[in-house]
């Protein structure tokens, strides 16, 4: 009897041992899986967060002492991060209001905004820079009409409204772009800036410089790379001339993204684009992968022209103090009266889904930025002109060029490019088509560029507005 019982007991112990082993194995497996998953998770998140952090985050850790509201600005321009961090710190020291500025890594603003908006402390201040943004994030934006900040504006030209007339975001600065030229080099080549009054003039000068590049020691245009760090100068900025002249012909500025464009001025876009790629230091075939430093080529006097914008002024004027910006001359009739492309993607939106205290604190902070002499001076230095009555004046030479053109009765080319539907996809297709064209400049290749440019607009408009 007892022997039998022992037997059973032993069996039970055996079963228990096996069970224990199984559980141990199972928990071990879970542990490993967990570790692996945790590992993956860490990698993934550290990838993005470290990026964001490296370009700046956490302005001040000090807690608010007076007001109850907090400010959290999700900034999208890495190049102004340092300035904003300093301004945030100053504001906190002055008022005790906590201001946090986080900057999304270059090109990741939309991803960063998507994830930050989901957090329990979402940004109170963020950027809605174009109609695509209004479409995507308009619901999250407070109507800024009649707010303290809106009252400081001296123009409504840089504001964005949605279809219902809600003031979704307001411009905090504006910029301009065009062709930056080095008058010294142009004179060295035996020409004068006065010769460049239209496309024919620009073409004659550029082609002459290119022909004599070997003896002159510099070329006409700096490289027109098609990699991500540079392609926007052509697929975004230069493309604007096509959209703008369509607008101009229609006699009405776009207020929302048109479903289609005609592509009537594609030839003019081609004129200027061809001039850039074929009269340059770099062979068009080498543009696809990039790796050329166009800014540096211009700064070191290796190129006389550089397609870019007013934000380059600080960098360029270090070595080329007399650099000037000229319009996109492209062979359109009457372009002698053209001015620079002025506009902005720097538009503030206040989060409608945070507490009223936070909204108020945020608007107070915005007002301070545009009215305080020191703060606005710092902003202006980095960003260009601020369209606010009490803001500091800009010392930017290119923006002064823009103002001079306007004062001389030239038309401002507004940023119609901001309406590009599904902008990233649209431009990516254009880059691909331009790459093929650069390698082999045939009519067929240009036809593909035109398809991407014109029909791509309609396709992306449909995609962006699909229900």
């Amino acid at each position, binding site marked *: 009897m007892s022997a039998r019982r022992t037997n059973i007991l032993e069996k039970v112990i055996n079963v228990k041992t096996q069970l224990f082993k199984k559980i141990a194995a199972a928990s071990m497996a879970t542990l490993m899986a967990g570790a692996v998953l945790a590992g993956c998770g860490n990698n993934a998140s550290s990838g993005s967060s470290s990026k964001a952090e490296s370009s700046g985050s956490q302005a001040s850790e000090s807690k608010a002492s007076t007001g109850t509201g907090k400010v959290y600005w999700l900034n999208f321009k890495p190049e102004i991060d340092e300035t904003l961090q300093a301004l945030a710190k100053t504001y906190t020291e002055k008022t005790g209001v906590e201001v946090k500025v986080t900057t999304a890594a270059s090109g990741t603003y939309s991803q960063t905004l998507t994830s930050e908006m*989901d957090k329990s402390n979402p940004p109170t201040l963020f950027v809605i820079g174009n109609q695509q943004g209004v479409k995507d994030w308009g*619901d999250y934006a407070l109507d800024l009409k009649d707010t303290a900040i809106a009252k400081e504006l001296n123009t409504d030209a840089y504001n964005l409204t949605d279809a219902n007339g809600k003031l979704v975001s307001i411009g905090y600065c504006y910029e301009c772009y065009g062709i930056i030229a080095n008058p010294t080099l142009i004179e060295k080549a035996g020409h004068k800036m006065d010769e460049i009054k239209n496309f024919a003039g620009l073409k004659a000068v550029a082609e002459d410089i290119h022909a004599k590049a070997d003896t002159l020691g510099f070329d006409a245009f700096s490289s027109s790379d098609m990699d991500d760090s540079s392609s926007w100068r052509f697929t975004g900025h230069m493309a604007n001339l096509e959209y703008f002249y369509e607008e101009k012909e229609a006699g009405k500025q776009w207020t929302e993204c048109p479903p289609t464009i005609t592509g009537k001025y594609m030839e003019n876009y081609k004129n200027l684009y061809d001039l850039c790629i074929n009269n340059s230091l770099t062979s068009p075939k080498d543009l*696809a992968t990039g790796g050329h430093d166009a800014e540096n080529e211009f700064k070191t006097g290796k190129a006389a022209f550089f397609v870019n914008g007013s934000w380059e002024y600080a960098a360029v004027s270090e070595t080329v103090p007399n650099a000037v910006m000229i319009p996109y001359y492209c062979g359109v009739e009457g372009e002698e009266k053209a001015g620079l492309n002025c506009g902005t993607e720097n538009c503030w939106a206040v989060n409608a889904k945070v507490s009223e205290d936070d909204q108020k604190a945020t608007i107070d902070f915005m007002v301070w930025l545009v009215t305080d002499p020191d703060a606005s001076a710092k902003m202006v230095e980095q960003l260009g002109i601020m369209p606010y009555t009490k803001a500091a004046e800009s010392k930017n030479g290119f923006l002064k060029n823009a103002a001079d053109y306007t004062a001389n009765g030239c038309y401002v080319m507004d940023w119609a490019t901001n309406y590009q539907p599904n902008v990233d996809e649209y431009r990516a297709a254009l880059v691909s088509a331009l790459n093929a064209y650069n390698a082999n400049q045939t009519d067929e290749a240009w036809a593909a560029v035109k*398809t*991407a440019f*014109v029909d*791509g607009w309609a396709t992306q408009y449909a995609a962006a507005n699909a229900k």
Partner: protein
Amino acid sequence: MENKKPKLKIFKNPLRRWGWLFLGPMAAAFIIGFVWPFIQGIYLSMCQFKTISNAKFIGLDNYVKALSDQSFRHSFVYTALFAIVSLVLINVLAFTVAYLLTQGIKGSNLFRTVFFMPNLIGGIVLGYIWSMIFDGILSHFGTSILMDSTFGFWGLIILMCWQQIGYMMIIYIAGLQAVPDDIIEAAKIDGATKTQTLFRVIIPNVMPSITICTFLSLTNGFKLFDQNLALTAGQPFVIQPDGSSIKTTEMLALNIFNTFYGSNSASSGQAQAKAVLFFILVAALGLIQLGITRKREVQQ
């Protein structure tokens, strides 16, 4: 025999009492980090949303859209082709290298280390490094890896082989070393040639390694993202007459990513639906492949 009882008690109770302590944290991590997001992912695939806290249930629409998306189908075919080619090349080459390095060549250990090292570099970095290498060569011919989808395809294959062969090699070496010497000796005595020994004795005996390696390279091929993004990001595009474009070198995972951030707010849900389909596809393929190769394993 009553004295046996306490033994059982000692054994039983600590387990009963403390089992959760060992299981709990990992189970919690697993649920928080995997099970819950997975369930939520499936739910979101049936929603329209911009941020996940603001999702609106819309049923199966996203799946219909995902399946009728031409770019999704293209990327599926492209990915399948890539996975098959890379599966074959990686495994054949990894096995060859492993076989050579178990033949007692001088410096085997050094070679093993060197071959394994590429695996330690992250995918994005690898993609950028290799794009520089490829473009460095291709620029002599006035072209670039972004210009031709054939370059993009084989470039990615070369990159993946370079990265994965060393890893698979280690697994094969372990398998080869586990083949009992006596079987090989018996084959030799029976007069088998080197080739016969390889195909009739060694390969059947390393089937478990082959199972693991094919599983890993197949799923890796399908899930590939970083390298694809860094090397070509889908370039070149074929511009369709209607203005849409097919990204010729875009693989499934990148297609899902591009859909999520690509167009309007309706597309996040569509991307989520694609991701669920993607999971089902990879899981099913992995299981089928495991089933097939398992059958061929021999018991020693």
